[in-house]
Structures are given as structure tokens and as C-alpha cells.
């Protein structure tokens, strides 16, 4: 690079310094790019893939039939499940004759690709808008059915709506 000797005005430094100070002063009144995170949140993209949710139907029965397609589709092998047969007095709990007695997703293995959602024939699993879980133990990242199941739509309608998020509304548009 060619280096020219400074002209007299340049060697005074001051004009350049004042120009710079004017710029920084103007920036003080600019709109801030930062979002106050826990209070404000950026809007999600319509295809955002967060933590998984196990869906229920309108009466609050679990959709999942433990077919295992999600576990097969999962490239990270994060999903494990055990199937069980529904007994006659459990008809209000599970929608079909077979259900998942145990359903676990290892959130440390999961890559949030959404293939499980695409594989599911019963619309039982989908990725929500919840994200950024934090914990001190590895074990707590293996989510069982308690953590994955969406709140009951009849008993806890508000929590159900919150867990559902704005996703369905956006997908309809």
C-alpha cells in the first residue's frame, strides 16, 4: 500500500477527530438494534422448529399411536418409545387402540430437523416455538411424556393455547 505523508490539515488531527465525534454523537440517538430479550421476543419465522410437543385432539386424547415412524425418521436417533394397548376404561385418554406408554426425546441429541413431524401419520408430534432449555444435568435433557405432552385442551385451555403457539394460525394464512 502506498503511504502518503499527511497534509497539514491531516496532521492537525483535530478536524478528523471532530468529524468522528459528530458521527458518534449522532449514533447516540439512533434506534437500538438490541431486543430486551426475556421481555420482548423477536417474531418467529413460520417454519421455526423448537422443542417438540405431543399433540392431543379436541377432547384431550393423545394422538400418538406409538407406530415408531418418527423414531425411524429421526437422523439423530433421539426418540425412543414403548407401545401399549389401550384398555376399555382408557378410551378418554388415548384416541386409538394403541398408545405410547413411554415416549422419550433426548434433546441433546435432537438436531431439530423436523423429520419426525413430517413422518407422523397421526399429527401427534410437532415442533413448537419453545426453545433454549437450560439445565445443570444431562439427564434432565431427556424429555419424557410429562414434559412433551401438550396441556389438556378441556381442563387447561389457556395453557393449551399458549403451548400451541401462533403456529397453526400462521400456517393457515
Amino acid at each position, binding site marked *: 500500500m502506498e503511504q502518503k505523508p499527511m497534509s497539514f490539515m491531516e496532521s492537525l*488531527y483535530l478536524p478528523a*477527530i471532530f468529524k*468522528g*465525534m459528530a*458521527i*458518534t*454523537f449522532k*449514533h*447516540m*440517538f*439512533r*434506534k*437500538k*438494534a*438490541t431486543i*430486551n430479550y426475556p421481555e420482548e421476543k423477536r417474531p418467529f419465522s413460520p417454519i421455526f422448529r423448537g422443542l417438540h410437543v405431543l399433540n392431543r385432539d379436541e377432547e384431550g386424547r393423545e394422538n400418538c399411536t406409538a407406530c415408531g415412524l418418527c423414531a425411524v425418521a429421526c437422523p439423530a436417533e433421539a426418540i425412543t418409545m414403548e407401545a401399549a394397548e389401550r384398555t376399555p376404561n382408557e378410551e378418554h385418554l388415548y384416541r386409538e387402540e394403541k398408545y405410547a406408554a413411554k415416549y422419550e426425546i433426548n434433546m441433546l441429541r435432537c438436531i431439530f430437523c423436523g423429520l419426525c413431524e413430517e413422518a407422523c401419520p397421526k399429527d401427534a408430534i410437532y415442533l413448537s416455538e419453545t426453545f433454549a432449555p437450560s439445565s445443570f444435568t444431562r439427564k434432565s435433557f431427556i424429555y419424557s411424556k410429562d414434559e412433551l405432552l401438550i396441556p389438556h385442551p378441556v381442563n387447561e385451555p389457556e395453557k393449551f393455547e399458549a403451548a400451541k403457539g401462533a403456529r397453526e394460525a400462521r400456517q393457515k394464512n
Partner: protein
Amino acid sequence: MTLLFTMDLLLVLEKFLLIGAVISFALVVAMYTTYAERKIAAWMQDRRGPNRAGPLGLLQPVADGVKLFFKEEIIPIASNRFLFVLGPALAMITAMLTSAVIPWGEYIEVLGRKVNLQIADVNIGILYVFGVVSMGVYGIMIGGWASNNKFSLLAAVRGASQIISYELAMGLSLISLLMMTGSLSLKTIVEQQMNGSWNIVYQPLGFLIFIICVFAECNRTPFDLPEAENELNFGYHQEYSSMKLGLYLFSEYVNMFISSAVMATLFFGGYDIPFVDESALAASWGPNLTALFCFMALFAKVLFFLFVFIWVRWTIPRFRYDQLMDLGWKKLIPLALANMIITAVVMLLIKN
């Protein structure tokens, strides 16, 4: 002992209270200057700055202080223990000492007693300021040397040579001011400015040189070579932790506050309220209220200079070491000398 008894005990009490007030005030202001620094830096970079601790993040400096207190105190084995502890203490003490000669207001009346709002009205006020400011280099030098760390030592040597070279230009720039005022007492200088106009009108070049030198003395950007993070890791306080580090970082802000006060006093009329006749004000409102307003005026000027300190820091990159020395020795000193000669000639012309 007889001296102590013949002295006015009330005067001693009064001075103690004043010293306590000035020092605690300086510390609180320095504390919130750290907050202002972070906030303004954030705004200038289109960020928000600390806003979590308390409303608007106002408790942030308290949280920082508490954090520093609870950090582990480490004294390296290879260091010189005595000097290692002495360094930050010296830095802090010299930072506070200068506040003794600054007049914070005219006087207030407490229980029929006239209390002068200046800790010590010494007739060599400016010389005292210079003496104490040049002591400030010992805090850096001793701290850097006692750490027994090459980076610390390098930074300390840089700092020492920088402060010594800029002190020259600083002194020279003030000589022209002193030729005009004819007094070294800061109180007299302020009173002259209250009756006439501010010294900045007569000495703009002197002020420019002075403010540049003050930036160098305070180790503020663009002259923050002693603590150049990316060149010397952390500078002379690299080996320090806990509150000793806190004292070093804090003394910088105390220094900023005090030198802002010195600049306001010397060039911007000190506690003079612009366009207001203070003696008429004192006649109608009483001395206490007037003193309060005078102090507010001084404090507003100080706040402005603190803002300039911060503003410059977040605008200008650091000087290279040779550029720093060039600026100090080849530009500022000749300029200050020329300013001195011009002032002398003009004064002689006016006199005749």
C-alpha cells in the same frame, strides 16, 4: 500540643466534614461515571447498555463493586508484596488529593459561621495540583514493577514516560494562563473569572493543549497506552485482582472527575453561573442557596467534561507510541511555548 489547642477546634471539625463530603462525593460521582461510561458507550454503538440491575440499570456500579469485593485476592509469589499493595493505594490517594484545592463554591453559613467551600485555599494551588498529578505516575510505575510481569512492566514504563512528557506541555500551557491571572490560587482565579469573562475566551489554544494533556495524564483514550488491552494484555494492572484492581480502575474515574473540576475551574469560571451576578443573588437569596446554585453550575460543567472524556474514548482509536511522543514533544510543547510568547506580547501591548 499547644499548637493543637490554640487552633480553632471548630475549624478542624469543619475541614474534616468538608473533606469527608468532598471525598464521598467524588467517589459517588466516579462510581456513576463508570455507569455513564458503559451507558454512553452502548448508545454510541447502537446498543442499550446495562439495564438489568435496578431501574435503568442504576444499581450496576454497586453490583460491580460488590463483585470486585468478593473476588479472590491474588498476590503473585514472585511479586514484591509491599509495593504490590502500595501501588493501587498510591494511585487512589493521589487521585483524591487534588480535590483539596478546588473551590466548590464561595461559602455557606452554618450556625452563624462562615464555612469556606474549599478544603485548602493555598496560594500555590496550581503548583500543588501539578505536584500531586505527577505523583500519580508512581501508582502505575510501582504497580507495574511490583507485579514482576513483563507486560505490566512495559505498560508501566509506557505510562511513566507518557505522563512525564505530557506534564511538560500541560505546565507550559498553564503558564500563559497564569501570566494573565497573576495568581496561583484557584480561588483567586475563579473570582477573577466571575468579575470578567471566562479564561477560555482569552486562552482557547491553552485550553486545547491543556485538555489534550489531561487526557494523557488520565490514561484515557486516545492515550491509553499503559492499559492497551490488545497489545499488553491488560496493562500495568494485569496481575491485580479483586479490590486492588478495583482501586486502579476506580482511580481512573476519580482522576477524570477531579481533572474535569480543574478544567472547569481554570478555564470555565469554576462555580460561576454564566450571565448571573452572584453577589446580587447572594443578597436576595442568602449565601447558602447561592452556594448551592454555584455548586450546581460547577457540577454541570464537570459533568459536561466527563461526557467529553467518555465521548472521545468511544470515538478515537489509540495513538501509536511514536505518534504519541511526536505529538507530545514536537507539537504540543512548541505550541504551548508559542502560546506563551503570544500571550506575553499581547499583554505587554495592552499594558503600554
